[in-house]
């Protein structure tokens, strides 16, 4: 029997507000343990929460970006459970009335677009972190993360494979980055997800028993976890066994999951309205105002790059998936005002710029390079004033801190030689000392041409116009 995999995801994203959700402590990662805390976020007796309104604004923006209905009157609720990293023994969250609901995002997979429903988005507070270390006995708690604002984005069970789940996660991540409400750093845990998987015979319209998986710490881990769980369920069903609704814990290192909680011992969180906080009320005008703050989102951007700028789908997607790249590219397009083809700019952004970013792990915004400098390089090449190779030299100089392009060209002698007589002299000199290659070419080994042109370029220190060189070398060889 053929089976279909059904996936739904609950994504938690930490918001990058300056302060925490219910107190004035700094919302920052990686600082010394228990330094970003106060009586409120550590739940000392008698303390009270007050809502950071930025959190609501950020969440509403995400609601807009995912086409949700915004509930401009909603409340907060307590989710009660005991754990040492939860100092109040309840988490302030939202139960029956979330801030945003009934939305969707469109994902792209192998050139096909698919719509994934968003059930709801609600705000809540993060818990602390348990520290286990050989350096000390037992377990200690770091409360720095207590009260860091989170949004939980719950999807409909609309995904049918781990690849779709990955595409959905990538889409959410880039939206979060585009609207700048989360740092989206997986390694710091700023996005985490719980995965719900079920399987059913292909063609069936009823859902199978759903298994929830915790401890999924990366997008690729999510794919592995989904594939493993779907296989486990299919194999079990094929053996005639039953699937139980339960929570399992994913172990990414071992590539397996184990039962954490069965349905019978599922926790009763005893949700009830948080009496310490008043109803959240967002005026309709404010909701509309926040909508205006939503920038062009990745999907719309990709479509525009392809349709209006003539980029390939692949290039458009590659640029759009990385916000610094998008920023640089969009600014270049704006500055160059059609003097340079978008395709050429795209090649630079996806070529040298991306290579630099990948190799160094640096953001281009941290370097002296900016859109106008990059445009200048590209324009000089387009006008044949410098060679492509020289362009790369200038790029590196700029990155190194030397931003005066004219001076670089002057000092490094990068001005391109397009003058026929000057190039002719270089060609003659090169061919004179490379007679063997000349003979090879004439004997039919045509790849000698590339070598000879390369030698000419080298002799000109990269300044010769490569097209001119090739033309003159050919002219000589064909004589």
């Amino acid at each position, binding site marked *: 029997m053929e089976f279909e995999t059904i996936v739904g995801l609950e994504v938690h994203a930490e918001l990058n507000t300056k302060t925490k959700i219910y107190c004035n402590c700094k919302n920052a990662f990686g600082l010394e343990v228990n330094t970003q805390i106060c009586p409120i976020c550590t739940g*000392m007796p008698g303390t009270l929460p007050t809502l950071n309104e930025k959190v609501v604004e950020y969440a509403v923006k995400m609601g807009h970006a995912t086409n949700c209905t915004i509930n401009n009157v909603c409340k907060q609720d307590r989710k009660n459970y005991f754990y040492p990293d939860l100092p109040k023994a309840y988490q302030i969250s939202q139960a029956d009335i979330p801030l945003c609901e009934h939305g969707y995002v469109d994902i792209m997979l192998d050139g096909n677009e698919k719509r994934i429903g968003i059930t709801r988005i609600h705000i809540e507070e993060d818990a602390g972190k348990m520290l286990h270390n050989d350096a000390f006995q037992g377990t200690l708690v770091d409360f720095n993360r207590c009260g860091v604002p989170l949004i939980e984005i719950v999807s409909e069970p609309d995904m049918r494979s781990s690849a779709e789940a990955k595409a959905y996660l990538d889409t959410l991540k880039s939206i979060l980055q585009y609207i700048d409400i989360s740092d989206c750093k997986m390694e710091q845990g700023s996005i985490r997800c719980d995965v719900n998987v079920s399987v059913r015979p292909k063609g069936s319209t009823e859902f199978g028993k759903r298994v929830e998986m915790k401890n999924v710490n990366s997008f690729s881990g999510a794919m592995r976890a989904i594939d493993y769980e779907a296989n486990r369920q299919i194999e079990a069903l094929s053996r005639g066994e039953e699937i139980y609704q339960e929570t399992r814990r994913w172990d990414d290192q071992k590539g397996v999951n184990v039962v954490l909680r069965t349905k019978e011992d599922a926790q009763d969180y005893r949700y009830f309205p948080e*009496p310490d906080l008043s109803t959240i009320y967002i005026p309709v005008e404010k909701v509309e105002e926040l909508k205006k703050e939503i920038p062009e989102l990745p999907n719309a951007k990709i479509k525009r790059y392809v349709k209006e700028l003539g980029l390939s789908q692949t290039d458009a997607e590659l640029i759009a998936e990385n916000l610094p790249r998008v920023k640089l590219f969009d600014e270049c397009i704006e500055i160059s005002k059609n003097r340079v083809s978008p395709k050429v700019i795209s090649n630079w952004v996806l070529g040298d710029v991306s290579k630099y970013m990948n190799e160094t792990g640096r953001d281009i915004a941290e370097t002296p390079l900016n859109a106008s400098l990059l445009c200048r390089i590209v324009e000089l090449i387009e006008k044949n004033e410098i060679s492509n190779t020289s362009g790369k030299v200038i790029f590196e100089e700029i990155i190194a801190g030397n931003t005066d392009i004219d001076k670089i060209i002057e000092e490094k002698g990068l001005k391109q030689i397009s003058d026929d007589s000057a190039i002719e002299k270089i060609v003659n000199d090169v061919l004179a000392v490379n007679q063997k290659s000349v003979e090879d070419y004439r004997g039919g080994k045509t790849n000698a041409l590339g070598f000879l042109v390369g030698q000419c370029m080298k002799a000109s220190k990269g300044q010769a116009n490569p097209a001119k060189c090739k033309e003159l070398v050919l002219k000589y060889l064909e004589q």
Partner: protein
Amino acid sequence: MELYEYSAHELSEMLADSKVSSEELTKSVLCRAKATDDKIGAYITICEENAIEKAREVDKKRGKEPLHPLAGIPIGIKDNISTKGILTTCASKMLYNYVPPFDAFVMKKINSADMVITGKLNMDEFAMGSSTENSYFKKTHNPHNLECVPGGSSGGSAAAVSAGSAVVSLGSDTGGSIRMPAAYCGVVGLKPTYGSVSRYGLVAFASSLDQIGPLARNVRDAAMLYSLICGYDSMDATSQQREYPNFAELLNGEVKGLKIGIPEEYYGEGVDNSVKETVLNAVKELEKQGAEIVNISLPSTKYALNAYYIISSAEASSNLARFDGVKYGYRTEEFTDLTDMYEKTRSEGFGDEVKRRIMLGTFVLSSGFFDAYYKKAKLVAFDICKEFNEAFQKCDVIATPATPATAFKLGENIGDPTKMYAADICTVTVNIAGLPAVSMPCGKVNGMPVGLQFIGQKFSEQTLLNTAYAIEQLNGEIKPAEL
């Protein structure tokens, strides 16, 4: 006459005129506390050194800078109000060693007015109870009859003021916890409008009902203290942003034309006849002065106790979950794992009544029961609010007994929780509706004080205090009980 016997407003003038020093006054009050507390048991912690030091400090300041009218006056604080650097136990083993690292909002006000803190007062554990018998540390006795309870949960706050071991005090009121002990001990107790006094730093029992308020031996003192502690606090999301008058300055005993509502439900079965009579006699005195008596009905009152115990226990079960032995307070000595640590710590750290409420609250919030209990209780609460609003179309204040009977004997109700809970029948509706109410001594039955409760609309404290003041003018200010 000893200094501890004077009222705060008298002492305020004596201090201002340098007829007496705060140090002398403080020593007099502390001396009274030490002399009587073996019998009364009002204090959990007496802050003798700090108090005298603070008094001297205020004496030095006097004449050099303008001081608050309450500067230098000794005050006792209920032990569920966070006091920076001073033990705050909530009368529980769970917090037997807990010293808060911060001051409650009201303590900042008290400190900024240079009042002298005499100590922390006994109460029912985590403010759950009606007799102060649920304290882990000691039982408090009623200064009018040591065999009787002082009422609860602010039993220490009422008994200290009544005995003269504090000039004024702060209590907290979730279902009657200021008014009921005020009535039993024969002092004035004000439960303010929900949201008028910040709850920041008050260890929460039931967040939607809790409110801090003053206890004093006369209306003017209560008004002065209330004027000091009320006001907006950005740290409490339920705090109301509004201007408050100087309640003490505006006090007048004027009741001419005042419409006083008498709700039949508060004078029915279960209310002691002699208490009823004493209360109605006092109301009649006001009528003689030009007040108008209006008969009203608040039919949902019969569901109020049930609704109250569901809502307050539900919130308490969540509020008290943080006492888990992880970060502060009591932790069991031996345990096998985390769950065992939680279970033992909470079983050993909480007293029976607290555990009863936590279990009750946990039950009513459980899935499958939420709608039948919590949701239904909230519907009752809605009806109670509506009926009060309707009633206030017909009258300005509502007069009821503050308690169905005078103080009962220690141990009398301890084995019967429902009988104990019934003592709150006259007071819980006020908290459910978030209204202000004052309990005012209006006479005695068999030597024990009777409290008359005036309930008003939200933020009508001035009217309530004025009405209480009219009663006080008939009977005179209360003096400390003789011991």
